[in-house]
């Protein structure tokens, strides 16, 4: 493995990512125009914000393309510290922004950012860097401990917001990266044990999660309360059928489906573009994941491998969870569909992470 060996970068990945982000703006327009007009008097309210995110995201992606990824290895501690500080800032009165009963954002002037979105990537970066350096320790529980510690602190901070879905993402990411680090089965199983206890514990701590769970089993038992979101999502998908109602022709976007432009944008896509539309969309998602894994596999060094695998995992986990939530296969939880859902933090950092993948693919 020689360094500085230039390979052709994965241009199709970048094109796919950029196209998907643009498509996201289109879908946000379709899903939010009516609501935005009613609520803000500006049908382009969400689209304008997303276009700004798209510009910044594209810049971040291109920047990351040319930033040698190995420099990131040195940023593992700053990344963790910055992420942790941002996560804590959420709880500082006056800085944290509360919406729908959860404090997940911090506000700067007119902008808000979602620290948990950054934390996912910071964690992936830290873990990749740590395991790359300490690859001999990964076979013992103590050796994995720093990763568990950072991941655990992040999870606690995120669940305290509360944000169940990103906590789950970080947890799954942690497991995935530990598994990929080359640990042995025994260590992996020991680490797995606390995860099993985590779910019942979380339910005991916040009883509303149990209601969410029952609403998932029979949403029509509480159609106006817990079941509402899922019912509306299913109505959208059902209305779409095989071929969809056509772009801009959603009925559910007329304020029936909450979060139509963000966490549940997939429902509107399913309604307007139908099952076949979603089939193409998921094929594109699978393509990104496939390219990400290929980049990881082809990468010569351990850090690059784990970094690429981690970022790909972050993306893939989110897509899968979002799809399962929207289609009612798992209990509802708020999680954006990366590159599509409205939300600049997620968009910018996801695009940036894809830029890093590209850089890894070039073997810099």
């Amino acid at each position, binding site marked *: 493995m020689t360094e500085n060996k230039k390979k052709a970068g994965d241009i199709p990945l970048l094109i796919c990512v950029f196209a998907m982000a643009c498509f996201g703006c289109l879908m946000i327009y379709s899903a939010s125009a009516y609501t935005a007009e009613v609520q803000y008097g500006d049908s382009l309210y969400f689209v304008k914000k997303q276009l700004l995110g798209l510009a910044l995201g594209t810049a971040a992606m291109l920047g990351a393309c040319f930033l040698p990824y190995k420099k990131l290895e040195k940023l593992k501690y700053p990344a963790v510290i910055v992420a942790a500080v941002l996560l804590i800032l959420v709880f500082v009165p006056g800085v944290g922004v509360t919406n729908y009963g959860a404090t997940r954002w911090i506000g700067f002037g007119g902008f808000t950012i979602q620290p948990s979105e950054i934390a996912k990537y910071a964690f992936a970066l830290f873990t990749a860097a740590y395991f790359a350096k300490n690859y001999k320790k990964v076979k013992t529980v103590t050796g994995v401990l720093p990763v568990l510690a950072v991941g655990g602190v992040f999870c606690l901070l995120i669940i305290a917001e509360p944000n169940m879905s990103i906590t789950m993402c970080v947890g799954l990411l942690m497991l995935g990266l530990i598994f990929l680090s080359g640990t042995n089965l025994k260590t992996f199983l020991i680490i797995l044990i606390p995860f099993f206890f985590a779910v019942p514990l979380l339910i005991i701590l916040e009883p509303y999660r149990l209601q969410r769970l029952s609403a998932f089993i029979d949403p029509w038992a509480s159609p106006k309360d817990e079941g509402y979101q899922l019912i509306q999502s299913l*109505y959208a998908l059902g209305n779409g*059928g095989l071929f969809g109602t056509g772009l801009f022709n959603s*009925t559910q976007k007329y304020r029936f489906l909450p979060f139509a432009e963000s966490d549940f944008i997939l429902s509107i896509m399913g309604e307007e573009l139908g*099952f076949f539309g*979603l089939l193409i969309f998921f094929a594109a998602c699978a393509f990104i994941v496939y390219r990400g894994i290929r980049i990881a596999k082809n990468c010569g060094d351990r850090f690059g491998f784990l970094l690429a695998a981690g970022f790909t995992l972050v993306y893939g986990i989110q897509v899968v969870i979002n799809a399962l939530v929207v289609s009612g296969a798992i209990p509802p939880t708020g999680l954006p569909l990366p590159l599509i859902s409205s939300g600049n933090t997620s968009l910018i950092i996801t695009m940036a992470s894809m830029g890093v993948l590209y850089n890894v693919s070039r073997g810099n």
Partner: protein
Amino acid sequence: MSITLAITFIFFIILGRLLYVQVAWSSELKLRASDQWNREIPIIAQRGKITDRNGVILAGNRTSYSVFLRPNAVVNAEYTATILSGIFKIDPNAILEKIKGGKVSEVTIARQTDKESIEKLASYDLAGVYYSRDNSRSYTYGDALCQVLGFTASDGTGVAGLERFYNTILSGTNGEITYSTDIVGIETENSKVLYNEASPGDEIRLTVDIDIQLAAEDAMRSVYKSSGAKSVACVVLDPRNSDVLAMVNYPSYDLNEVPRNDTESLNALTRNGIVSDIYEPGSTFKIITAAADIEEYLRGNPKAFSTSYVFNSSRTRTVDGTKIKCWSDHANGKHSNQTLAVALNNSCNPCFTDIALSLGKETFYSYLQNFGFGKDTGIDFSGEAVGMLVPETAVRDCDLARIGFGQTVAVTGVQLACAAAAAVNGGNYYSPRFLKSIISADGKTVEEKKPVLKNKVISEKASQILAEMLEGVVKEGSGKHAYIEGYKVGGKTGTAQKYEDGHVAQGKYVSSFVGFFPADDPQYLALIIVDEPQGVYYGSTVAAPVAGEIFKDIIKIKNIEPFERTE
């Protein structure tokens, strides 16, 4: 390799789930969702008209409007409530409660409101408030035929009279406008509007002749005033088929201003007494007894009296130890040498006691049955009374003796009129009826109702003899106040004492007269009932002239030529 497999696996799980939701479950989900996607505004069906036998509109429609409110589409609840309460005179708090209650998606604010209110409402352009066309009933003749026609509730359904009886025919089917809205009921920009047309109700054409009705109304109104009676009633039938040509109960009320606030007086005023109330007929019932006797005599029954038989002229008969007296004192040769015809002229009670007792319980009761006493006539109207007839198994001779001249029996006006019609029309008993035909909104006849012949009561010959005798009653007997020069009018008077709590009520009488013309081919039959006249109370003086008035009007209206001209 295994990772690619895992990705593929997850990929297919998601697609499988989506395929299930979007394809297998799709139609059920869409059905459930259509509830929230669509809103409906009702289109109220045009109610069918009620017309008289010649198509004159008795009950028609006036365009009005209904106002609805969708609570969750209201922008400013207080403002909306204030405006609505101002226009429609409703308590603003009640409206506010409806808006904020949030239980129902649509509330009715007002029905049958006029155009001015709607124009005022439209000028405010209130969010969440809608209106649509409605019908208000309009009755051409106000109080004429009011108890028969009945009226409708504010939602347009018939709640009284024929409006209620034929509500299903009249009401039609409401339609609706369906359009897609957003979550709060605001019509969406690409709304698919569906019109489901209302189908109008059918017209019901009655047997009633409004001209005869109005003549009868006039006559009854004047006798009500002149006699000081508690109430008066009248029915005019076509005796050939018992079509109801007119029916009056007075006092009455204006159908266009129904006194809805006073339930007690409303109940009294809306009661169609001639169908729903019973009374002791008295001497008018002698028509039936005479009919039975003539028919039995013609059949050769030795117990029947011939038309030339002279009845015993004693004033009293003693039956089962009770003494039955004639209303007349029989002094100075009154009520002597009476044949059946003379007995009818004089309305002599003992003669009819003789007939009833002679024919016997079994024979006499079979006639009462055939003439429809003790059971309903089958008229197309709710709340018909069946009258009171002592059961054949329980009837004593002293009862039978009194039934012969119309006591110990109670009938409805319609029962007696139909029985009298059958007695003089050739002997055919028809069920009385109001509905002549059903006509669709576009003028096509949906159904032509045929008269219902129930049974034969007496032979044509007997009927003819009886009619002739009854013509004599008007010509030279107690019915002479109904006489019209140049026309053959037949009839029979009746004066019955009223009973209260099982005892004769002193000074309370029901005066009545049943008359028909022309006697040799009866086409009009009228029963006049005057309940509790003040002062003069004989049917001959109180009721008979009213029938005469009505018949004179009919002659004028129908331009009927006299059978003989007098110089």
